[in-house]
């Protein structure tokens, strides 16, 4: 198993996802001799997991069962331990597309945070690209390194523990794309620019507040970024349930002619009826910018 390649069977050392039911799952580190407690009973790694096919149903000691899933960045995002607020797959999707990321891309990211976006970026740029991620919190940086190691992707990522606003990304002129999710992104735009390739690249900054967005847009313009767009994406999930609505008794017409089309004696005139789940996620704000056109930064030459 690895986060950048599918495997068929569960192996010792894998990170697997235990799926218990609707929206209920958690990650587990597969290890010989270990047991995992679930509400359906105990899972013994040596007998129940190792050697089994991913996607298998595993019966737990109390009789209930679960499914064991191969990890993906999306499943990881839903189950990872939060050290910070994370980005969810909806935003990650549009970021990936707008930054034009693909295998071979070189990306710079700050802050690493809990590694939600990082895993998704690594997956997209593999096997020939690289992620340079900067985190100013020492423990978080170390935890990120540890997780990347455990997930078999350490060769695709470099974690640097420093302040991107002061010291940049630690690389220059090599990135196709830069992503910022920090409190004061306008302070890092200059560093972002020097990390990007000379031919130009794309930058994206993520901020929850419009004031941050405004300041960052201005900074982007100052540094010669063009085609600056600000986007917000909201996910709406629909709840699908099959229910039957009772047919009201409108009585019967005189004798033979029952004029209503409905057979009111049949209680099940059902059809799928969907219900909208609760409120949409709270909106976040994204900024995108296009090619960094060196010619438009005329001031230096």
């Amino acid at each position, binding site marked *: 198993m690895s986060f950048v390649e599918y495997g068929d069977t569960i192996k010792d050392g894998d990170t697997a996802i235990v799926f218990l039911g609707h929206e209920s799952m958690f990650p587990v580190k597969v290890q010989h001799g270990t047991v995992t407690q679930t509400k359906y009973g105990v899972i013994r790694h040596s007998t129940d997991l190792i050697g089994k096919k991913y*996607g298998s149903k595993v019966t737990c000691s109390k009789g209930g069962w679960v499914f064991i899933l191969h990890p993906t960045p999306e499943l990881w995002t839903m189950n990872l331990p939060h050290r910070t607020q994370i980005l969810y797959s909806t935003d990650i999707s549009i970021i990936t597309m707008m930054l034009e990321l693909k295998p071979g891309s070189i990306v710079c990211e700050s802050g690493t945070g809990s590694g939600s976006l990082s895993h998704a970026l690594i997956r997209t740029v593999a096997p020939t690209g690289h992620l340079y991620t900067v985190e100013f919190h020492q423990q978080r940086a170390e935890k990120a390194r540890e997780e990347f190691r455990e997930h078999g992707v350490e060769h695709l990522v470099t974690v640097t523990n420093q302040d991107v606003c002061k010291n940049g990304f630690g690389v220059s002129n090599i990135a196709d794309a830069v992503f910022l999710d920090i409190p004061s992104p306008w302070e890092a735009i200059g560093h972002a620019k020097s990390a990007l390739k000379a031919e*130009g690249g794309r930058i994206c900054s993520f901020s929850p507040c419009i004031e941050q967005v405004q300041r960052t847009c201005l900074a982007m313009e100052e540094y010669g970024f063009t085609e600056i767009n600000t986007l917000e994406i*909201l996910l709406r999930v629909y709840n699908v349930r099959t229910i039957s609505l009772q047919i009201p008794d409108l009585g019967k017409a005189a004798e033979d002619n029952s004029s209503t089309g409905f057979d009111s004696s049949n209680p099940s005139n059902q059809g799928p009826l969907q219900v909208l789940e609760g409120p949409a996620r709270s909106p976040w704000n994204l900024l995108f910018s296009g090619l960094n056109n060196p010619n438009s930064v005329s001031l230096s030459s």
Partner: protein
Amino acid sequence: MEAGPRPGPRICEGDCAVLKRDDVFKAVPVLRRRKIIFEKQWFYLDNAIGHTYGTTFEVTSGGNLQPKQEVEETTTETKEAGTDNRNIVDDGKSQKLTHDDIKALKDKGIKGQEIVQQLIENSTTFRDKTEFAQDKYIKKKKKKYEAVITIVKPSTRILSTMYYAREPGKINHLRYDTLAQMLTLGNIRAGNKMIVMETCAGLVLGAVMERMGGYGSIIQMYPGGGPVRAATSCFGFPKPFFDNLHEFPLSKVDSLLSGTFSTETLPSEPEENTLVEEESNGLTDEKQISLQETEEETTTETAMEINQTEEQDTMDMNTEDGEFKENKEKESKDNVREKQRKQWERRKKLIETAALLTKKNADGLIVASKFHPTPLLLSLLEFVAPSRPFVVYCQYKEPLLECYTKLRERGGVINLKLSETWLRNYQVLPDRSHPKLTMSGGGGYLLSGITVVLDKGKSDSSHLEALKMEEPSSKRCKVQDLHC
């Protein structure tokens, strides 16, 4: 201050490039002496060849492109401006230049910038406008008179935006943010073995190919005679990317699943007609992308396109001229041999692809078509390995509801989710930030899930599974649920 040539990929003849002006995109082939119409301007791309992608050009009077010189913004002397519009009357008489005056300026070859300057000077109300209104006015005039075109390299981002704006019908109104979700939910990445079923002119296929970077393999399922890959060719993928792209006809899926697959009856018409159909499918689409604006150009385009397909011409030759009879006999013998060889090749490929499918170990399934999703999913999911994601796009919600229900009955899938994304863009300017457009409902819907090992012939357990996977209901209702 001439900067040296910018680094980066260069525009080459034969490329598919995308013309961009503000938010309008158009994909065109880069060919010499080929007249292009874009945003009410006629020009040739010849001068663009050799420049870097991302360069901005101006159209000269001769219809040639010229890189736009970077002009320094005139230093803002404190402009005269008003505070509000209470005294500004919109009587249509504030611009002193007439339509003819402006035309005269344009004909003289005066640059757009100059024209805008003239318009400002000849506007009686300009100095009464607020600074913001002046900015807005200048922007509007610039947009109209300073016709600049940027040539950009195609990518999923650009092509999906272009198609959604220009020809949404061709892609079943798949909005680009919905496409972005599909690529992520489906865990599209290098090394996967993907099954793709789409009727979006090949845009979805191209997006998948871009995210796979040439690694792994793709089996494209297609309806009718052959897959449409018009949009796919716009991406400009290197040839090796197509080495592991296979295709398989939907009409053979049932036989494959029931074990009665044979290559005796190939889908639809014989060989060369299918090729022509594929060719013309691609051409027609390309035609529609690049020639939406005039009919006049359509005819010249078609003529030139058809000239390129000489092979087809010789095959379809219908002449009964006696003089050519002898040569034609020899040619037709060669043609027959060639036809047979091609047919044999096709059969061979079909068998190979069928073998790939029957392994039932695909790493994912992407469906985005005009067809009802339920039958597609129910059959194509059979080819997907357990613990792999699948994503189905549908322009409408209702078919996905049925799909959801049928999948629950079938079992073997978990984490089913029916979703839609709303997109909102913003204008961000100092003291003038506000949302612009909210796009909702018109971008289509997605049904996604993960496969698991299917318990065949255990309808009870699959029903129980379905109940388990549903929203947790109160204990009291649990027994009643079984009878719902």
